[in-house]
C-alpha cells in the first residue's frame, strides 16, 4: 500500500495498515542508522522546521537527527527565540516559517489540537511532536516498534499503561496504537487521573496496580508531572509512589518476560525504582534509538505522499 497522508497528527486517525507500514519502513531506516555513513538523500532540498513551544531535549534532538539522516535542511524554532513572546499568533508564526520555505513543520505545543489548526490552514505537512494532553504519535509508534521487535508481534499482548492517563498524550497515542494492532490495553492510576470515559473505546481501567499488571506482557510507565500534586489530584508524591510506583514486588504477577517502558525523563523512585529502570531487560535506552528510525520513517512516508500526484 502507499501512504497517502500529508500530515501525521495522531494515531487515532491512522489505520492498522498505515501504522504497520510506518513500522516496516522504520525497520529499513534502522538499518541506515547502523551504517558507517548514516545518511540517505530522501529529503534533500526539503526544509523541515522544528517548531517547539515546550522545552524538550530528547524529542527535539531525535527529530533533528532523523531529519539530518534524511538530508533535510533543518530550521529550529523555539519559543524563547521567537516572536511568540511578543504576542504573535501561532498561525502567523507558522505562516512565516512556511514563507521561508519550510514544507514540513514538526510542532510540539502545550495545547491540545494546535497541530490541527496548522494542518487546516497551511500547505506544509504537519508532524505532531506532542500536543497538550492529546497525542504524541512518534512516541506511540516507537513504543510499538520496540515491542514488536522484542516480542515479534503486538496482537494479543496485554499492555498496561500506568499513571496520569487524564493528562498524558503518550497514553492516548499508545492506547490507539496498541488497540489498532490488536493488543489488550489496560490503564491504571489514581481515580482522579483515570477518566471513566476511556472505557468507551475498549480500554479496561483499574485503580489497583497489582490487579492491572496481572499477566501483563508490557508495562508502560507514564511520567508524573510534579506540578500535579499541587492540584488536588493526589495527596503527595510519596503516596502516589506507594500505590502506583513500580518495583520488583509489584511485577510478580506479570508475565515472566514482561517489558517495562518509560517515555522519559524518569523520576527515579517515583514511577520506577532503579532496579527496574537499569535492569538487563529494560528497553528504556533501546526506545531512544528506535525513536530516530521511527521518525525517519514518518518523514519518508509523508514526503512520498506529498510528491506523489
Amino acid at each position: 500500500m502507499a501512504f497517502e497522508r500529508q500530515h501525521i497528527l495522531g494515531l487515532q486517525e491512522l489505520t492498522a495498515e498505515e501504522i504497520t507500514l510506518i513500522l516496516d519502513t522504520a525497520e529499513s531506516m534502522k538499518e541506515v542508522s547502523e551504517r558507517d555513513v548514516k545518511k540517505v538523500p530522501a529529503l534533500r532540498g526539503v526544509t523541515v522546521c522544528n517548531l517547539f513551544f515546550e522545552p524538550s531535549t530528547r524529542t527535539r534532538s531525535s527529530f533533528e537527527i532523523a531529519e539530518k539522516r534524511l538530508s533535510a535542511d533543518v530550521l529550529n524554532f523555539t519559543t524563547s527565540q521567537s516572536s511568540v513572546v511578543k504576542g504573535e499568533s501561532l498561525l502567523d508564526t507558522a505562516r512565516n516559517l512556511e514563507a521561508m520555505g519550510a514544507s514540513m513543520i514538526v510542532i510540539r505545543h502545550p495545547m491540545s489540537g494546535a497541530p490541527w489548526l496548522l494542518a487546516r490552514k497551511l500547505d506544509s505537512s504537519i508532524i505532531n511532536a506532542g500536543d497538550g494532553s492529546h497525542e504524541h504519535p512518534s512516541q506511540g509508534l516507537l513504543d510499538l516498534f520496540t515491542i514488536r521487535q522484542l516480542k515479534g508481534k503486538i496482537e494479543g499482548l496485554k499492555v498496561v499503561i500506568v499513571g496520569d492517563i487524564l493528562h498524558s498524550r503518550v497514553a492516548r497515542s499508545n492506547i490507539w496504537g496498541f488497540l489498532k494492532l490488536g493488543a489488550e490495553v489496560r490503564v491504571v492510576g489514581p481515580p482522579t487521573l483515570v477518566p471513566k470515559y476511556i472505557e468507551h473505546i475498549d480500554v479496561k481501567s483499574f485503580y489497583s496496580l497489582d490487579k492491572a499488571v496481572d499477566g501483563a506482557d508490557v508495562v508502560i510507565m507514564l511520567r508524573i508531572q510534579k506540578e500535579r500534586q499541587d492540584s488536588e489530584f493526589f495527596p503527595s508524591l510519596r503516596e502516589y509512589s506507594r500505590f502506583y510506583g513500580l518495583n520488583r514486588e509489584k511485577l510478580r504477577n506479570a508475565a515472566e518476560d514482561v517489558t517495562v517502558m518509560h517515555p522519559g525523563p524518569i523520576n527515579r523512585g517515583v514511577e520506577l525504582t532503579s532496579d527496574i529502570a537499569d535492569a538487563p531487560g529494560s528497553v528504556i535506552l533501546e526506545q531512544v534509538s528506535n525513536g530516530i528510525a521511527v521518525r525517519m520513517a514518518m518523514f519518508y512516508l509523508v514526503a512520498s505522499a506529498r510528491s506523489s500526484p
Partner: protein
Amino acid sequence: MSILIKGGRIIDPSRNFDKVGNILIEKGTIKSYPEDIKKLEKDSAVKAIDARGKIVAPGLVDLHVHLREPGYEHKETIRTGCESAAAGGFTSIVCMPNTNPINDNASVTEYIMLKARTEGVVNVYPLGAITKGENGETLAQIGEMYEAGCVGVTDDGMPVMNSKVMRHAMEYVKAFDIPVISHCEDLNLSGNGVMNEGDTSTLLGLSGIPSASEDVMVSRDITLAELTGTHLHICHVSTVGSVRLIRAAKTRGVRVTAEAAPHHFTLTDKAVAEYDTNAKMKPPLRSETDREAVREGLRDGTIDVIATDHAPHSEDEKMVEFDQAPFGIVGLETALPLSLKLVEDGVLTLNEMIAKLTHLPSAIINVRKGTLNPGEQADVVIFDPGQKVKIDRERFRSKSKNTPFNGWDLKGVVLYTIVNGNIVYTKEPLKNSGSK
C-alpha cells in the same frame, strides 16, 4: 406611512390567534385586521406587502444577546448587533452587561439606551450586572439601573459564586419586581475546562467542564429563589440534570423560568471533534442525552423560551489554539431556521415555537412585546418557513462570523422585519426561489 400585510397566515400565540388574514399598521401601531382591503389597496399612502403563503408573527424577542458595546466594538456594536437581529427576525433584544465598562451603573445603561435609540433598528433592553464590576461581592446600583431602563440583572459570564451575595441580590430586586437572570456555573468545577467533559474531551485531551458544574448552581439558585420568592430565570440550559431540577421546581411552584439556545438543542460535543473553535461556548455543547433532555424540556414547557446567547468574537480571536479561543458563537441570524427544525422534528408545533420566541420571553422581562394585539406597537416578522436556505456566514449582518452552522442547509427565511411600524429589514425574494 401605513403598511398593509395581505393574506398571510397570522400566528399570534399571545392571543391563541392563528388565521389567514390582513393586518393594517398605522402610525407605528397595529391598527386593525381589515377583511375588506379593496380601498386600502388603492390608497397610495399604504404600502402593501403580499404575505400569501407566508407566516406573519409578532417580531421575535431574544432574551440573551451580547452587543459588545461599549468596549468590544471590534466584535459587534449596538448598530451591527441590531441589524443582525433584524435580519434574523428579531425586533426586541435583551443585552448582557459584560461590556467594558460593565453595565453596573446607570450611566452605562443610559449610554446603551441612547446608542440603541439613535443607531439601533430594533428595541434594546439592557440587563444590569448583579455585582459591581461583576466581582461577585458587592451589589451593583440595581435600583438606578432599573430606573435607567434595565429589565433585569444578571451575572452572565461571571457567575456569583458567593451564595450569600446571590441571596441578597434576589431579595433586593423584589423592590423593583425584576428577575434575576442566572448563568449557572460552578467556576471551581469548571476549572480550566474548555468543552463538555465526556468521551470527546477525553480523546481530544481537552479539559472538560462536567455537567455537574451547571447542575449544582441550578440547584443552588432554585433553592435561593425558593427562599426569597424572587423570579429566577435560568440562562442557556444545557444538561439533563438542569432540566430535571427546573421541572421539579416548577412542579412545586417555584418562580423559575428557563431558556435554551439553538446550539444546545441542535449540536452535541461531537462538533468539537476537529478542535473547531466555533463549537466552543459556555455552557459547552453537551452529550446526546443532554441534547435530548433539552428538547424534551422545550416540548413539555420546562424550558419556557428559546434565546440565542449571541456572542460575537472576531476571526482573529477564534483562529487560535482551542484552549486560547474565547467562548461563544453568534446566533441571531440562525435562530429561526434552527428553531423551525424543532417543528420539522415534531418537538414543537409552529405556534409553540413562535410563542417561545415572542410573548413568553416578553413576559419574563415584563415588557409588552411579542404580540399583534391591536393598539400595540407594530413589531412584526414575516417569514417563509419552507424556503430553503444555505447558511452563509459571509452574508451575516453581524460584525462577527463565528458560527458552527456555516454551510448548513436549513429551511426558514425572514422576508420582512418591522419595528414600530418601520420596515427595518427586507429580503427581496429572488426569481424562481421560494416555496409554493
